């Protein structure tokens, strides 16, 4: 499960593009993660230009 820090996130959606599971989406609440799809690979966390994403293992 991925959590986005709304204070850091610039809503650029780059993470959406690199997610191999199509688990991320930009909504009016910011970046949201679908826990059913997320495989906790952390690719989006590595990508994020501003360090806004955090991996919370095993939580949904």
């Amino acid at each position, binding site marked *: 499960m991925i959590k986005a820090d709304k204070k850091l996130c*610039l809503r650029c959606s780059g993470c959406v*593009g690199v997610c191999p599971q199509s688990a991320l989406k930009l909504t009016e609440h910011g970046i949201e993660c679908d826990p059913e799809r997320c495989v906790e690979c952390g690719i989006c966390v590595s*990508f994020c*230009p*501003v360090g806004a994403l955090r991996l919370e293992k095993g939580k949904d």
Partner: protein
Amino acid sequence: MQSYDVVVVGAGPGGSGAALEAARRGLNVLMVEKRQEIGSPKRCGEGLSRNAALRMGIEPSPLWIRREVKGATAYAPSGKFVRIDYKEGPEGWVIERKAFDKFLADMAVKAGARVLARTEVTGLLREEGIISGVELESEGRVRRVRSSLVIAADGVESLVAREAGLDTTLRLPDAVSGVQFEMAGIEIDPDRIELYFGNEVAPGGYCWIFPKGPDTANVGIGVRKPFSRKTAIEYLRGFIESRPGLRRGSVLEVNSGGVPVGGFMDNMVTDNLMVVGDAAHQVNPIHGGGISESFVAGRIAGQVAAEAREARDFSEAFLSRYNKRWWKERGDMLRKVLRLRMVVEGLRDEELNWLAENLRGEDMIEFSKARGFAMLAKLLMKRPRLIGLARKLV
């Protein structure tokens, strides 16, 4: 239900190129943009070369030019630089994307397309499994629009193509993490763009200063895994802090984004759908510029849309002529440039310094067009460690 010949998803340069071309050829076109304003917020350094404008077939206009660029200076880590100067006229412009993207969308409107901002595609419609239109949401209201053809120009996130079953995921090594501050009150070279390379300053990418006025500029960075060890914004802050002319500057806007620099797709179509622009990774992988690439690809897709309408055939087999034309016109060259990216990313700082001593500005321009590789390979061969890299070029 309203019906169109083609629905274009996304009103960036890729979408507008497609909408313009399709509308010019008599198609009934709807282009939708999910954001409330076309061209904003930008995910772009806003550089447009003269060659790129020529490729797009547009005349430079005061409506969107912020600054004329006379040349470029590329810095190696040692401070050694290569000056790129153009003999005939300006090298290009730093533009205002917000104005530029609207200008392109307006061209499509003048050709007959209908454009709606703040309208999001929330899903594809299917009849017996075949794409038959889109579901739109605007101001909380949902409606359906019928269309035999969808052109997905929805940016790096590429959700529409994915829903259609195309794998457009951008692989991490091909994804530049970009951040940019539009700055004011800074001391810069107001007539030249500046590029800074090095494994400490911008691993896997570069820092840029693109002037928008005498003391204003887009100051940005692109970095990439596996080379980078911090976030892009940390590298950018380090770069700005290291430069007295920038350190005390003001920040007018903050942007970020993912830039595809590789991952070109052999197939960009499926039944009733074509993908263009960042969504299809159509970016020059050596500098990350994608405005003209998207627009040109969009225009090819728009042509093919008109031909498909004429033939009443929207199958993958028919639409694949878009693949064929794009690869011939742009893809083959861009794939060659990708090899250059792979060489540059393998260089140590000391080797970048050495290259800067041995290259001329004209060489750099040639390289970005996939020319002059034999000359570069010959130079790299002089150093035993670089022979393997040199082989990638020939």
